[in-house]
Structure formats: C-alpha cells, structure tokens
C-alpha cells in the first residue's frame, strides 16, 4: 500500500533515502487555534532512523518572538525521552502529548514584534546529529497589528 504525501503531517513515503530522522507532529482534529486554558493534544512519530541510533527525544511546547528584535522564548511544557524509553515502547509508535495552555503570552502578529507558539520535537542521534520539526498553532485570537503614524 503506497503512502501518499500528507501535507499536514510532513510524512513522506518510507522508501525515501534520507539519513536524517523524519518527524511528524499532528494536533488533534487538526485544530489550529486554541484559547488560553485549553489543552493542546497531539501525537508525534519518528521515521527513517533505527531505534539504536537515537540518543534522546525532546518535545517542547513553547513560544518565541520573531521580528526585528533578538529572539525571546520560553518553554511552557517539556518532556524528554531517553533511548531506554524509546526502546520500551517502540520507535514508530505514535507518541501522545498534551498540556494545558497558559493565559499568556498570546500569539501576536505585530509589526516589529511577533509572538508564535509551536510544538517542537527534537531528535538527538548517537552520531551527534539531530533533527527538528515544528508544528505551529495559534493561542488566542488577537488580530494582526498595523503600524500607526504618530
């Protein structure tokens, strides 16, 4: 059964010849906009590597700023799985995560300051390399900002 490319999950056919981990992250029901206090739930999966090659896997739910200033960020939720944990449950299993989202800071599309929320999964390999994937989501519904001339 051939798998077709799924644009929402970054999943590619297993026959690809990349040597980097393929990470796919999905959010339940494909929900993109969350309200403060709601729980963000989802799952992730790691492909294209052998379990023996993995040193650790980290998942974070974080916000970061983007724009003209130096990046600020804060991790709201963090979990780390070691090689032992991975082997116990099997690599290609879908792993679930969930966390209650805070009241602030809300996602913001400003002019020189933007705030973005995402779920980030980072895979550390034994050979020193690592791979990262992100799934962005929106916290709150703040309309985008416009510059106002003084």
């Amino acid at each position: 059964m051939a798998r077709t490319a799924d644009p929402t999950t970054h999943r590619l056919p297993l026959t690809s010849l990349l040597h980097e981990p393929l990470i796919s992250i999905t959010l339940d029901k494909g929900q993109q906009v969350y309200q403060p206090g709601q729980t963000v739930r989802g799952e992730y999966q790691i492909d294209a590597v052998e379990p023996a090659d993995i040193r650790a896997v980290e998942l974070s739910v974080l916000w970061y700023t983007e724009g003209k200033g130096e990046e600020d960020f804060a991790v709201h939720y963090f979990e780390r799985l070691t090689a032992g944990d991975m082997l116990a449950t099997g690599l290609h299993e879908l792993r679930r995560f969930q966390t209650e989202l805070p009241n602030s800071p809300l996602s913001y599309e400003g002019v020189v300051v933007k705030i973005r929320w995402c779920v980030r999964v980072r895979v550390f390999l034994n050979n020193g390399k690592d791979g990262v994937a992100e799934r962005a989501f929106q916290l709150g519904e703040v309309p985008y900002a416009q510059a106002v001339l003084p």
Partner: protein
Amino acid sequence: MKVTAVQPPAIRGGFCPPQNPFATRFVRPGAMPFLFSPPIDREALVAKLAELQWRGAIVGPHGSGKSTLLAELLPELNRVGRRVVQFTLHDGERRLPIALSDRALSDAQTIIVVDGYEQLNAASRRTLDRHCRRYATGLLVTSHEPTHLAQLYQTAVDCELMETIVDLLTRGDRRFVSATDVERAYCLHGQNAREALFSLYDLHERRWRELHERL
C-alpha cells in the same frame, strides 16, 4: 540544525500572514550562509589563514557581513583541529572581557577570535598581541579598518549580492519585495547590508498588510 517548514497558522478566517524572511532570526550572523564569490570558499579561506600562521583580519564596513563570515568559518576551523575561543565586543567595550592568563587561551592549537577588534583600546591590543605571539595562539579578528594583522578577507556588498541574499531569504517568493525594492535599499544603505535588510523587513510588513486590506 535543520528546521522543517513552519506554517504560520491562520488568523482572521483563513488568512495566513506570510512569514517575514527578513526577521532577525533569519538574518543574524550564523543564520544565513556567507555568500562567497567563487573560487573562494570557506575551506580556501581557512587554508589561507593557516598559511598566515593563523593570524589574520576580516575587514569591511558596518553591516557588510564580517560576523556572518566568522560564523561560516568556525565549523571549518573546528574541522581542521583548531580550538576556537570567540569574543564579541559591543559598543563601548574597550577591553577584552577575559583574563588572558586563562590556561585555555595559551596553547598553539587555539585561535582567539575577536569580533569587533576596532573597539579595543591600544593597550588591550598590545596585550593581546603579545600574548598570542608568546604562546603561538592564533588570532582572527573582524574590524572596520585595516589592522596590523594580515588581511584575510575584505567583505563588500554590491547590488548583485543584495539581490542574491534576498532571493535566498525569500526562497524565490518575491510577491512583496521586488528587485527594484532591493536596488533602492542598496542605494540607500550602501555597504550596510544589515540596514538594507531591516528596511526590507519594514517594506515586507507594509506590503502584505496593504495587500490584505485591499482584498
């Protein structure tokens, strides 16, 4: 680190604000590759530095890519076995923020990298120089003006390079920033590519908002 594509989520009923390719996280030294003009590449430059006994200076005006070049060379320096100790001097810092007596800075396998060498006062430069000669430690600096060290590379920006940089950052999506805009930014800011990219940031923000208002 390889980051797979991040899709900014929808705001306001399906509309997705485009990511600004000129935000600092994409433009700061280390985030962007340094664009060499062939045949020069980073291996060649590191080889040249080796010939210069690991002492050299990257010279160029404000915002012309010196720190970016430094970030490009560091992995290559590590690869050929040099240990790199880097200091970045900011506005007003006239002295090295470390004690040179540190053992880690005194062996022939180390290169001391100073970003912003022109900030150092004469006394600090002399001390640093004496130290490096004594322990055969390498010294690679960036500076706005020529120094007593041999020139490793001169960074310079021209309109064509700006266009290449913008193409790279926007990944070919030129809906909001055209070639004319880049040319104008270059004329306005000259060698200071950083300022030019900042002004293109503002332009990008203004343009997508204008587009969205019209729809």
